[in-house]
């Protein structure tokens, strides 16, 4: 390979960065679907979710392989996302004094902000249910995931934070999933509105699936 193409590998082009965002975003969007589906076992009762959790921990190799892919995707998604945001702000040079918006959706214009809140949520969520160091009042649950989740969501403020974060995830996905198709060149005027709808529906399915659990705990459906 020539020197120029080597430097272009190390310094990705604008489209290259978009592709990184699209592919890592695809991994993360797929992960939330899997995670959400697993969570819904809460409604099947304590043994179902606890067995599922045990199954995951029994397959440590698989679990860690998934974790490594996820961690790398998160790092790349955030790193390139920050790069794009900063470059784009600089390229805009302030913009017009009274700026008009004709078409850009709220979701598309708030991607960095929804992203930051989701990141803060992920950190809290890991400390909460993976490392179990916050908001559980020091109680030890061991393998009883069901009991831990019910106890965790019994705290109203924690549940509200979860619900708000999931609504922001819906917003993030509604632009992100649709953008994946555009970035990979798999979209046209005929398919644009359909794919926008698919992305919005996907966002809502994910958000409502996740939200159903804290909501069920708060309303006493899950005890």
């Amino acid at each position: 390979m020539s020197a120029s193409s080597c430097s272009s590998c190390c310094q990705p082009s604008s489209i290259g960065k978009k592709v990184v965002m699209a592919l890592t975003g695809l991994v993360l969007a797929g992960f939330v679907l899997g995670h959400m589906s697993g969570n819904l076992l809460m409604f099947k009762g304590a043994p179902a979710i606890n067995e599922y959790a045990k199954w995951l921990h029994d397959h440590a190799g698989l679990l860690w392989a998934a974790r490594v892919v996820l961690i790398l995707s998160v790092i790349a998604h955030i790193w390139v996302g920050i790069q794009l945001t900063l470059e784009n702000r600089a390229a805009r040079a302030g913009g017009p004094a009274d700026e008009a918006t004709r078409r850009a959706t709220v979701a598309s214009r708030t991607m960095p902000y929804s992203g930051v809140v989701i990141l803060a949520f992920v950190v809290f969520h890991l400390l909460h249910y993976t490392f179990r160091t916050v908001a559980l009042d020091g109680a030890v649950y061991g393998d009883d995931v069901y009991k831990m989740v019910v106890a965790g969501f019994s705290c109203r403020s924690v549940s509200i934070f979860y619900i708000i974060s999931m609504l922001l995830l819906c917003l993030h996905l509604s632009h992100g999933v649709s953008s994946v198709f555009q970035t990979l060149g798999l979209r046209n005027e005929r398919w644009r509105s359909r794919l926008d709808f698919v992305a919005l529906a996907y966002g809502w399915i994910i958000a409502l699936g996740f939200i159903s659990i804290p909501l069920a705990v708060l309303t006493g459906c899950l005890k």
Partner: protein
Amino acid sequence: MVQDNGKEESLALKLRVWRQRRGQPGAFEEHALAAVPTSASFLEMMDMLNEQLIKAGKDTFAFDHDCREGICGMCSMTINGMPHGPIPGVTTCQLHMRNFRDGETITVEPWRARAFPVLKDLAVDRSGFDKVIQSGGFITVRTGSAPEANNIPVPKPIADEAMDAAECIGCGACVASCKNGSAMLFVGAKINHLNILPQGQAERDRRTLAMVKTMDEAGFGNCTNYGECQAHCPKSITLDVIAKLNRDYLRARVKEFFSSTGKPSKGGD
């Protein structure tokens, strides 16, 4: 718009117009302009303002214009925050004053983007676009006598698609409307125009890689799929050209990455 008595309506306007010298910070200047006929184009209204300034012994506002019939791509004003003004699908020169109200305050600014530095007042330097074209916006042809017109068959759908993309007049409204200052709609239009025609195949991959590289180097931002460019493009070019640019770029990069060197590798047999 003509009133019943046959007299044309006219507007009294308050104008906030950007004043800037190259390399210096700019600011808005306010001017009142009376008796603007509703049949006047926006540029004719600007001419009236400049005549008023000349009569008062003041400096006129510099602005770009040429054909005044919507095909050259020279006019370039951001009107009330919208490149080419409030009516979708028209250039500033084809925007008429009947689209404004009597007594309205109109804000007139240059294109706002780092890659388009202000030359003076409302005129910006769009040579970033020229550099992109120079890097790949051409095809190789045999010069000399005119070739036979139908030597190379072009399927009708391909010709139509190429012509849709070729509608781009390179005005820069896509960059000015993009919240990222991205030139992807422009580059996408040029790439689509040339990459799908049989005449453009020889340089297809080289063109795509070179034009994207030049676009990045010229200081344009990255596309994040806002869609503002399509909504402000005076020729209504769609985001399809960007999707296809992305696809062609990926294809070219993969082909480049796995291109044959023509020689066995050092460790091979």
